[in-house]
């Protein structure tokens, strides 16, 4: 007997609330539970829990954003979601043992693994077949041409025009959520940093904040301010790099090289200031690991200021260049309706007219509501996503200057004993959007850690932006989303 149909909360004006994440978990007694997290328009996230011991009716029919989550939970825990429009495996590819659910296995040592040639799953992964006169299927990946992560794209094209695109990811699935289990709480950040290597500080801070929420630890103001600087620096690095990469994809090499140089300036400034280019190993639950000197901070702030000024000049030139306008305008339009249905987050959502940003909707750390200028644009094309990134980089620079100018003195870390059994969650606006961590700990060890990465949420929206465009524009459209494969696959 399937359980009760899950009631999806609604806002006061009857609108469907935004799905944040769904994840499975085992209780202390080993019972399966399914947790649903929603954004109901308040600073706190709303949590609902379903009993996973019985099949849980799928909500993917009415909440399309739920589909990948349900498929993931099925692979991890073997929980059934009757009524799901798509019940294909997500994490486990054909060479995984049938019926193997890693989050259930007490011994994840599973032998023997079949080699690729003798697949254990009799069913080949089924892609949607588009058939008809003149329709050609183009498989791309998992290995791509360039310095990029692996993933598979299956295009169905008529001439140059994409009729249908289907993604198949999780090639970089490393079982990270399983690896968290059993680790000491204080050793969590280093694994969080290795979830998505170019957004590692956002991941580390989101993890730490979830732990701090669980143990009710207050972070000293100086640590909160420095975390804000790090988060905004990471956003600047990502956006400057992305805008340069977009120029590269339309053959505007001079601007691409300039942007790559500016990105490198920021990375070197970070290395000078805190000893690491990508802000790894900086934060721990409770605060930060090491303090910084005032003189070094001033140097860092000067470089950020100078870089932001030069980036703004460059951006003006980029947006004013006709060949760029010609390629960016109206390419890869993601409609607001689709973005909403798939609960898209981050710059991609803001470029499609959805005004969401964790920093202002669910303020955390050094951020406060009203202090932040969140740009949003309705067009939803490559140009809109490029402009969102340019404006956000400028805003990040302003926030960094503001934080450096009023950096509080005092402690950089709060000591605490992470012993009792607790749960906590936290979200961070990473450069790619809402990043949500849910952490449960007991006896100083992590018992469950779920990571909702913005890329996992946004990937299913990409095909909708690509359909109708020429296949040659795919790299450009994909780059304008700039999603992480590893962050998605974990």
């Amino acid at each position, binding site marked *: 007997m399937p359980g009760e149909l899950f009631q999806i909360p609604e806002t006061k004006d009857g609108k469907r609330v935004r799905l944040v994440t769904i994840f499975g978990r085992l209780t202390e007694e080993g019972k399966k539970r399914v947790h649903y997290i929603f954004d109901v328009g308040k600073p706190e996230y709303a949590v609902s829990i379903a009993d996973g011991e019985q099949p849980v009716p799928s909500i993917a029919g009415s909440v399309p954003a739920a589909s990948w989550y349900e498929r993931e939970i099925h692979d991890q825990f073997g929980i059934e979601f009757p009524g799901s429009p798509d019940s294909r495996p997500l994490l486990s590819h054909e060479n995984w043992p049938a019926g193997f659910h890693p989050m259930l296995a007490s011994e994840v*040592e599973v032998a023997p693994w079949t080699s690729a040639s003798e697949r254990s799953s009799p069913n080949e992964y089924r892609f949607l077949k588009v058939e008809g006169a003149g329709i050609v299927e183009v498989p791309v990946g998992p290995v791509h041409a360039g310095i990029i992560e692996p993933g598979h794209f299956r295009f169905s094209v008529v001439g140059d025009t994409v009729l249908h695109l289907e993604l198949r990811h999780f090639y970089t699935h490393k079982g990270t959520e399983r690896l968290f289990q059993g680790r000491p709480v204080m050793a969590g950040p280093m694994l969080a940093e290795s979830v998505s290597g170019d957004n590692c500080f956002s991941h580390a801070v989101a993890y730490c904040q979830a732990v701090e929420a669980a143990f009710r630890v207050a972070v000293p103001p100086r640590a909160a301010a420095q975390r804000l600087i790090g988060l905004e620096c990471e956003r600047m690095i990502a956006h400057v790099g992305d805008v340069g990469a977009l120029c590269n994809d339309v053959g505007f090499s001079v601007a691409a090289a300039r942007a790559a140089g500016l990105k490198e300036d920021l990375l070197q400034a970070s290395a000078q200031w805190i000893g690491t280019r990508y802000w790894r190993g900086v934060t721990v639950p409770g605060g930060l690991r090491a303090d910084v000197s005032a003189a070094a901070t001033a140097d860092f702030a000067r470089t950020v200021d100078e870089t932001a000024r030069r980036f703004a000049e460059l951006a003006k030139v980029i947006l004013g*260049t006709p060949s760029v306008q010609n390629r960016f305008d109206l390419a890869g339009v993601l409609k607001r309706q689709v973005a909403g249905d798939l609960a898209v987050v981050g710059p991609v959502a803001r470029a499609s007219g959805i005004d969401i940003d964790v920093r202002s909707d669910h303020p955390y750390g050094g951020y406060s509501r009203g202090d932040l200028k969140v740009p949003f644009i309705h067009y939803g094309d490559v140009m809109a996503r490029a402009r969102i990134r340019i404006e956000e980089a400028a805003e990040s620079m302003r926030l960094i200057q503001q934080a450096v100018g009023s950096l509080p003195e005092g402690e950089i870390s709060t000591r605490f004993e992470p012993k009792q059994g607790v749960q906590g969650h936290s979200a961070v606006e990473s450069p790619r959007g809402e990043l949500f961590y849910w952490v449960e700990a007991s006896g100083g060890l992590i018992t469950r850690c779920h990571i909702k990465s913005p890329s996992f949420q946004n990937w299913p929206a990409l095909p909708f932006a690509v359909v109708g465009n020429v296949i040659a524009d795919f790299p450009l459209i994909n780059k304008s989303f700039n999603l992480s494969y590893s962050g998605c696959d974990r």
Partner: protein
Amino acid sequence: MILDVLKNSLAAPSRLIPVEALLGSCQGSRMPEVRPAALTSAAAQLAAEVCPTAALAVERNEEKLQLKLDYGKCIGCGRCIQVAPEAFVRADGFACVGVSREALIRYWELPCGAKIEGATTSESVRAEIHALMGRALNIRQLDPGSCNGCEAEISALTNPHYDLERFGIHFVASPKHADMLLVTGPVTRNMAEAVRNTYEAVPEPRLVVAVGACGVSGGLFAQSHAVVGPVSSVIPVDGYIPGCPPTPAMLVAGILHVLERHIRIGGRKQL
């Protein structure tokens, strides 16, 4: 407007980092270094206990205790420096790139702290650099499961600060055009087949360089059920570049060093 960008670019001072400054530099990598004079048994024990990837270990070699530091496993978390700051410091120079797997492992005798030399190649890359200039080396980067940290740093090699092309080295889109595979990250179950196929597609003679703690040793992911193991568990590897992630300077030095070793040694890998 495009002319303005060009004009500004030409007027701006060059940001190119000279090769002397790249080789041996590891700023920003967070790699540790041992200060032999201050190394005590207690410090070594303490550091080995907090090391999350067991890169540091205290071992008994016949009668003597020794500290083993495997740079191939180190993710630069800095815990050893935190618990024993007198004995461990952040390295400011680093030559352990592009070497064999064994050469990434260093030993220090305890408690007197005398370093036991491993089988490290000590040829100076700098001396060979001119011989390598102008040689066309085509590199294909392959990601079998990395977190994208190593990719970010490899991409940086093409920016105006590092400009890998000045050595006659460039990145190609197809393995069929490549002399060298630069492989990052642990090999996941889902990528193992693609890694083998990509390796097979590279024409002989081919070089494989494993990049980053994960590529060299599996790093934090070595124990995962979804991971097969380090790069060497799936395809043969010719050189290793440690770090989490290695900095662009370490990558440049590592690539040049691997090349130099194989040109020197000749034989099967003669390029």
